[in-house]
């Protein structure tokens, strides 16, 4: 096991997460300790409801653990202020969800460059890089199209380009192909792995698809008992 290594990009220490439920509480994660190194492509599998998304949300600073500590990209995520968290999410993270979560009032290119603009980058520079990334995901011709004019697979590719625009160290993908048909799933997966490898990103990928899970460099299985390396 390498969870004590100092160069780890992500470190989870004795994480417990419980939600209040009725008059008691629902414990979703217990005693989770985990370490992920820079450049690893980690696939996470597990039954529905076992807490995979919850885990990603804790690492992404969208939620806080009930106990334990989350360190990621050099930040003590579980202890950061709301303001510092937004900065962490902007600079160090790229999210891709099952649902594309593109902004409906903005076209493909504008959606891609949004994190860069939020981060205060110059618009012209951001647009140049955004156009390049759209080319890389095969949507160079669709820059001015709005989300409503794109197919499900195309939207996920735009979301992927958006996740990469700020050159984050960590990409988190929560069932990115969960809503896609076979053909589109393969296309999005291919691009996801190709780009994360090429840009040397660390990837946390939640998936139900064993084939896809096998494509990573490391595989984790989440159960009620904890995490297992496969």
């Amino acid at each position: 096991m390498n969870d004590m290594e100092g160069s780890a990009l992500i470190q989870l220490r004795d994480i417990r997460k419980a939600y209040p439920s009725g008059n008691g509480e629902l414990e979703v994660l217990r005693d989770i300790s985990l370490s992920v190194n820079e450049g690893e492509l980690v696939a996470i599998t597990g039954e529905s409801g076992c807490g995979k998304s919850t885990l990603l949300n804790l690492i992404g600073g969208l939620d806080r653990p009930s106990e334990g500590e989350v360190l990621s990209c050099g930040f003590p995520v579980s202890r950061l202020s709301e303001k510092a968290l937004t900065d962490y999410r902007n600079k160090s993270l790229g999210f891709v969800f099952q649902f594309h979560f593109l902004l409906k009032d903005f076209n493909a290119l504008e959606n891609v460059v949004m994190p860069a603009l939020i981060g205060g980058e110059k618009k012209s520079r951001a647009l140049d890089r955004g156009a390049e990334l759209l080319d890389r995901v095969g949507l160079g011709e669709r820059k001015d199209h709005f989300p409503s004019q794109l197919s499900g697979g195309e939207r996920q590719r735009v979301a992927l380009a958006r996740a990469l625009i700020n050159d984050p160290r960590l990409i988190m993908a929560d069932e990115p192909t969960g809503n896609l048909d076979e053909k589109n799933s393969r296309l999005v997966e291919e691009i996801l792995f190709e780009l994360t490898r090429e840009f040397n990103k660390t990837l946390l990928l939640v998936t139900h698809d064993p084939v896809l899970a096998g494509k990573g460099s490391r595989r984790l299985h989440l159960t009620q008992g904890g995490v297992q390396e496969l």
Partner: protein
Amino acid sequence: MKFRSAAAIAFRSFRRNRRRGRFNSRPLLGALAGVALSLIPLVVVINISEGMIEGIVDRFLETDSYHLQIFSYTDKSEGDFRREKEAVLSLEGVNHAWLERQGAGMAYSEEGKTGVAVRAVERTIREEDGGFRRYIQVKEGAFDLSDDRSVVLGEAIAAKLQVHPGDQIKLLTGKVFPGGRYIPRVTPLTVTGIVSSGYQEMDRLWVFITYEAGDRILSPETSRTVLGIKAQDPYGDLRDLINRIGAVSEGPNWRAYTWEALNRSDLNSYQTTRSMLMVIMAMLVLVAVINVSSSLIMLIVENRQSIGILKCLGTSPAGIRRIYRLTGLFVGIGGALIGCGTGVLISRYVNGLVAFVNGTGRLVQRLLAPLTGGAAREFSLMNAAHYLQEIPVDIQWDRVVAVGLGAALLSWITSAVPAARAGRIRPLDVIRKF
């Protein structure tokens, strides 16, 4: 988040979405229209009330109250008044001084009769006094009081009596003897002119005769003589002039009053009416501005998902708040520009608009006449008797701009509440929904 990005995101809410073929937020445009509409009456009132009050006051000063009036508390002869007049005329800052005898009477012709205010004035008042000439317009004949048997009538009186220059009328005045015995006196007079002061209330009352005729037919008990002064600057400080008049007056019991003192209750009531109008209209604007804030809440509910996404992508709560405060500000600015612009345009052409509405109304009235059997009264948007015949417009740019800025600023301030709500939206709640 930088201002420019926040502004760009805020502004997107106003853009027409090509695919959806509608504006991104109708409530927002509704709120904008509300601000604009509420500003229009306020701006119009601002632009015409000043001119209206000024116009009314100026007319009063020049035709009715003079700038200063000198009364005597004891019986004074015409000679005393003439000497006082000469003394006052020698003062610097005095343009004219006119003797006037004011009384009441009843004018009648074969066609009708009406109660009148008799103004016995010096023959040359209209010739020499530019202010009087400006506002007393001759409608028929001439303002000719060269003969003691001449009379000049207000337009509404002439209409009522159905007389024209050259016709005769009779003026009934009276004398009260000790013990209360009243002796009527009838004086035949020849109409030489018909005039209008532009203020119908006055045109219904005034008949002008010569000072000498007035002296003869108006009894001291029911009339009074005043010395009306026209100063160089009626709107300046008249107290100094009053002091100097006191110094040159011969004997005691002369008292001078300024037009402000004489018209105080009228002036106050104009100002109060205007203030009340403004308060009511400012409240309309306030309601419209609060509506901006509630439409923002609708927009935020509609945009919950986008807000969650923006937060996921690294927008801080402050950044989200900034976006929605800017959105509110844009609504305010847009509403202010449209509202103030339209208000100024309407003010600018208000006379034409009133004429148009009156004309249309009368046309409709005439077309409907066979059905209604003819209306009792001619259609009129405003009761002309209480207003000037022409509304004086004076565009008060500074106030219009202040009101517009105020509305925009208020929109920005009241946006704080919905913006704070948007800032508190948790990204997780949005993301878990899918």
